[in-house]
């Protein structure tokens, strides 16, 4: 058995960078969580990263994340104590203690929530998540794709209003109920999702995504340090594709139903001059059209990056005049399986388009 390893300050810095890229525009900027994590680390609170393959089959694993609209997190930020409270609430509800915490969502701010809670609760964090990126809905997870139960859930807000969702018909109902509650709470809440066994984690998650995010962070950091092209380095490391380069000319944003929805228009520069790229988003980038033709859709990872620094740009930080590069990274195989696409394909987001991976080589 591989030994758990302690997370270092350098790991957290790289995780913030990599997770924000894997956020595909959503998931919220991990910056505030990173600040809080630095403070906890300075207090000597070390968190251990556990290989999921080392979990006992009957281990009881908490799965946590902050739910809500990224724009709101920009104002209300994050609080490790509230996140830890959702886990304690779940333990009280179950009458059992957790052995570890897994990630709900590696993309964006939620990459840090398990670590923040783990630092306070003294539990290890499992190197796996239920999305391999960021998605806006609970039914867009590997647990939903694998038809695991969606309940119980616990939810806590900053005022310590608490809810236990004891049972739900399916993932869609759980999503609907929790989203309503989240909106009432001010469009952000800490949640502990349905608990998982060690075996379920091993079989029904995307494995080693924390390590992947840290690796991506290092690739970008190294490219910057040697004044190289961080975007090119990222694409080479992860087998990604460069889709478009241009300047943001319009951003339309609405916070509705606890989501941030909208679209961004990018006018081409250099070799893309004369062409226009439009990205629609629901927290995350869902679909990209070039001159009216669909070029890329979820679950392929659509990332908008600062052309110079390689930093991810989120749907809440997109701004008129920014120079950006749109890239695609390959989706984990489970997401592009037939069952996977029912949950996370373009139709799941309401687009009447069949999924064809931008990595299949065929032109749209």
């Amino acid at each position: 058995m591989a030994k758990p390893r302690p997370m270092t300050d350098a790991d957290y810095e790289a995780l913030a960078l990599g997770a924000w890229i894997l956020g595909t525009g959503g998931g919220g900027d991990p910056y505030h969580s990173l600040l809080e994590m630095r403070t906890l680390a300075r207090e000597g609170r070390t968190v251990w990263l556990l290989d999921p393959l080392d979990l006992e089959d009957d281990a009881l694993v908490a799965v946590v994340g902050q739910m809500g609209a990224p724009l709101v997190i920009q104002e209300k930020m994050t609080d490790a104590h509230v996140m830890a409270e959702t886990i304690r609430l779940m333990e009280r509800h179950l009458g059992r203690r957790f052995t570890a915490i897994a990630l709900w969502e590696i993309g964006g701010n939620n990459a840090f929530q398990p670590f923040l809670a783990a630092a306070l609760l003294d539990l290890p964090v499992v190197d796996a998540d239920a999305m391999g990126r960021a998605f806006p809905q609970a039914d867009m997870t590997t647990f939903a794709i694998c038809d695991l139960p969606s309940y119980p859930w616990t939810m806590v807000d900053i005022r310590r209003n608490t809810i236990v969702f004891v049972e739900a018909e399916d993932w869609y109902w759980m999503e609907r109920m929790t989203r309503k509650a989240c909106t009432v709470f001010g469009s952000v809440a800490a949640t502990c999702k349905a608990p998982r066994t060690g075996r379920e984690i091993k079989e029904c998650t995307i494995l080693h995504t924390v390590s992947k995010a840290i690796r991506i962070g290092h690739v970008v950091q190294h490219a910057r340090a040697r004044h190289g092209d961080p975007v090119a380095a990222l694409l080479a490391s992860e087998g990604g594709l460069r889709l478009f380069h241009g300047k943001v000319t319009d951003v339309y944003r609405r916070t509705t139903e606890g989501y941030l929805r909208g679209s961004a228009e990018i006018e081409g520069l250099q070799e893309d001059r004369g062409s226009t790229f439009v990205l629609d988003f629901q927290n995350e980038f869902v679909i990209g059209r070039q001159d009216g033709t669909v070029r890329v859709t979820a679950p392929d990872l659509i990332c908008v990056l600062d052309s110079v620094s390689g930093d991810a740009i989120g749907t809440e930080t997109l701004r008129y005049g920014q120079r950006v590069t749109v890239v695609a990274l390959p989706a984990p195989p489970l997401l592009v399986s037939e069952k996977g696409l029912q949950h996370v394909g373009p139709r799941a987001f309401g687009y009447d388009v069949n999924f064809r991976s931008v990595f299949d080589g065929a032109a749209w």
Partner: protein
Amino acid sequence: MRHVGIDVGGTNTDAVLLERDQVLFSVKTPTTRDVTSGVTRALDDLLRTSRANPAQIDAVMIGTTHFTNAVVQRQGLTPVAAIRIGLPAARTLEPFVDWPPDLARLVRGRIFLLRGGHEVDGRPIVPFDRVAMRRVAREVRDAGLRSVGVTSAFSPLDPSCEEEARAILREECPDAAVTVSHDLGRIGLLARENVTLLNACLIDLARATTRAFTRALEASGIRSALYLTQNDGTVMRADYAEAFPVYSFASGPTNSMRGAAFLSGATHAIVVDVGGTTCDIGCLRNGFPREANNVIHVGGVRTLFRMPDLLSFGLGGGTLIDPADPSRIGPRSVGYELIERARVFGGSELTATDVGVAAGLIELGDRDRVAALPASFVKATLARIHAMIEEGVDRMKSDAADLPLIAVGGASFLIPDGLPGISEVITVPHHAVANAVGAAIAQVSGEVDQIFQNMSRDDAIAEARRVAAERAVSAGADPATLEAIEVEDLPLAYLPGNSLRVRVRVVGDI
């Protein structure tokens, strides 16, 4: 129209007289510790050489790095009471959390976290704790703090908590200057709060500096309006600058790049500005500085500012060079003491200017005083300086095609004649005072920040653009040069009728 542009840099204070798009005269004088006497002297020199009648000057525009330098050098800052209204949100991330510790120590007077603030849909997070606010205001007064920064959650959507806090502070401590965050920033509490606190810590310095400028104008017999230049290449009136010094943060580089564009007529180019202390490299696109995408740090503090994309490193005419090792260059500089401490001026320090004189690149001071420098040393030092500039240009250049390079600044003689990826190195008349030229040609803006109701988004934005353009033109902008530099809309779900807050900023040449 006769404009005077002044650039108050760390080393020199430059002034130019512009009439109908022509630079008539320019002067360069050393910056003084008190600022006023340096500006007065620059104005006197300019008026004397040009024989201009002070009464016929229409406007004076001053660009200064004074406020940025104060933050960077941690000097002249006022301790601030930081009041945040938003509990129980963001309890664990207090004000100053991401500031460099040494700067936070200087600026952090007291921190107060209060219950209140708003949700995204306009409901209060919790009711604003007015009782605690009054107690805090009295504590601010009793602690003798003269400047306060107030930030409330979602104040760009609903500023009422900040307004109430300001009213209470005015009652309890009428002498304190109050900066409220919704005047300065957008969504993003921590960055907005940082800018608010930066502004608050510069309040005393801003007052002293703008008054020093005003006195200098009066002493020179100039009666025209005084403007300070802002980050985006536009001007603000001096009384406004006194309340919002942060808006002038990056005006120096903006001025130098716009000045370079004006003097050379180039629209697409790399601009290299070698001054007394630093070398700043930027890109011109369509005559405007290319803007930085990423989060801007000022003195190590994360902000939401928009600034020119700039590479800045320690290399200027006053940069110190190790006489024993030509590869050890800077980053320390003798700054405005160049004319006392550099060898060619009779001093004992070896500076980049001394090397330039020894190499015959420029005639300054007494060349005999550097005659003893071995030719091999001079050559090796220059090679290293050229390599530093080449590397910087390469990093900033994003086009594959060759671009012209506009060399500006008092120490532009340090820039090599040819560089890879550069079609030609352009040196223009008055290049040494490009900053002051940029200040003199600063643009005017028209802004709209207004709530629109019962209108489609497209119509609301079009209407806001139209009004902003109108305001820019009535402020003196040439209609042919108008450009929207900021377009932003924010739905206000808590107001009826599809309410939308639209901000548009349009700028144009005078």
